[in-house]
């Protein structure tokens, strides 16, 4: 009888603990206020107020990054990337350390991606942006920029001319016709910084997505992995791979949402720095990495190079893998990518 009783007690304890998964509940929140995209936070928290505190903390930090990394708007009392661009060839601009860190990271990313991710490409991207915006507003008269003006602009994209003085915390663009566009790295870099901050505060089991830049902080309660889906570029109902991640970042770059149409042909927003035209190699590239900023830079860079070259680049960086969706919708993987695929 004693044996029976002790077994029953063990059973009750096992069920009690396993059913409440250390007492945490899943919460989600979204914001449309930062980086002109959807930012989502999913976390397992003890209660609603703990989650609200976390989500407000995350959105507040991201809002700060958003203002600093903005290339289109001025904010009272803040020197941001736009301020640096406005002062190109004129004078160094004193900026927050978050900008210095981003630009140092970007220079490093430029070397790592063999020039395919270049934050100094602003002069070229500005032209495409102007044509894309006009084409969206007036589709009947949508036009392509002429290659001559793109080539002329491309002669002002030397990343070496971003002069960073870490001691004085200033940035100076030595070419008056150059400008910065940090769109290929800013969201990923900011996601990495915010993830480090919340991990330091002791949060675990958090998933943050800034417009498709996803970062997993820890795993779900009980240790199970986060299930992250890859979007089907064709939206035709075909099943896409599901990744299982913990303490990893994943970023997708794709051509299928942000585009405009000229004479029936779509022209998207990822511009190949060599061809100066939208890249044509893939429908999307998804990169998994330990570093969200690097995943962001690589996903843009790998979109702009043939598969073999991209695979060789991805394989050369440890802890980094990728999946490519080809124009015919076939899917290719880097050597170690399959470890993340849900069985």
């Amino acid at each position, binding site marked *: *009888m004693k*044996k*029976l009783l002790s*077994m*029953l007690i063990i*059973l009750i304890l096992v*069920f009690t603990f396993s*059913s409440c998964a250390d007492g945490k509940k*899943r919460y*989600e*929140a*979204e*914001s*449309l206020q930062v980086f*002109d*995209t*959807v930012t*989502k936070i*999913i976390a397992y928290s003890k209660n609603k107020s703990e989650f609200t505190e976390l989500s407000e903390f995350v959105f507040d930090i991201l809002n700060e990054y958003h203002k600093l990394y903005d290339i289109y708007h001025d904010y009272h009392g803040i020197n941001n990337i736009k301020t640096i661009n406005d002062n190109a060839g004129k004078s160094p601009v004193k900026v927050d350390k978050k900008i210095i860190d981003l630009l140092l990271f970007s220079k490093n990313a430029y070397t790592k991606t063999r020039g395919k991710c270049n934050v100094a490409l602003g002069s070229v991207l500005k032209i495409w942006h102007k044509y894309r915006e006009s084409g*969206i*507003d007036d589709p009947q008269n949508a036009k392509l920029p002429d290659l001559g003006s793109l080539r002329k602009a491309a002669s002002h994209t030397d990343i070496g001319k971003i002069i960073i003085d870490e001691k004085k915390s200033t940035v100076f663009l030595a070419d008056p016709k150059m400008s910065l566009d940090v769109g290929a790295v800013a969201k990923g870099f900011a996601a990495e910084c915010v993830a480090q901050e919340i991990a330091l505060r002791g949060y675990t089991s958090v*998933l943050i*997505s800034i417009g*498709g830049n*996803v970062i997993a902080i820890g795993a779900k309660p009980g240790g*199970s992995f*986060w*299930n*992250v*889906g*890859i*979007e089907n570029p064709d*939206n035709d*109902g075909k099943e896409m791979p*599901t990744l299982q991640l913990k303490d990893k970042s*994943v*970023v*997708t770059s*794709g051509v*299928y*949402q*942000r585009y405009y149409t000229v004479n029936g042909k779509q022209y998207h927003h990822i511009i190949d720095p060599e061809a100066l035209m939208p890249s044509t190699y893939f429908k*999307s590239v*998804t990169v998994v990495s330990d570093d969200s900023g690097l995943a962001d830079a690589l996903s843009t860079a790998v979109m702009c190079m043939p598969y073999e070259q991209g695979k060789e680049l991805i394989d050369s960086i440890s802890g980094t893998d990728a999946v490519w969706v080809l124009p015919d919708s076939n899917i290719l993987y880097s050597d170690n990518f399959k470890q993340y695929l849900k069985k």
Partner: protein
Amino acid sequence: MKFIKKIDILIIAIILLSSLIFWGINRLNTTASPVVAEIYYKSKLVKTISLNNKKDITFSIPQKPNVIFHLYADGSIRFEKSDCRDKICVRSGKLNIVGESAACLPNEIILKIVRKKGDSPDDLDIILGK
């Protein structure tokens, strides 16, 4: 001395039965929960709609009558039309899987697919780009 006592059989039976009951409760709490679409305007939940309607309907929310949603008989939902300029919301296409979402930034609307109650370990937590 017998190899298995009656009491051992009873214990095994209790364990098996308890596991079965626990598994059943767990399934009821998660996978059985129906899938719904939630529509948020300015971060506030303004409409929840079952995806199990089995008929085609189009509708809008009172806050933004120029944004039209289409709920399909097959259980999917999309932004059908919008007065925004970039139409990224419309291009997001049909949604029907838990974890999918689409947004119309200029109109401050988010459409997302969730379980009515709880979550299932097999559900997607998020879909990249959606």
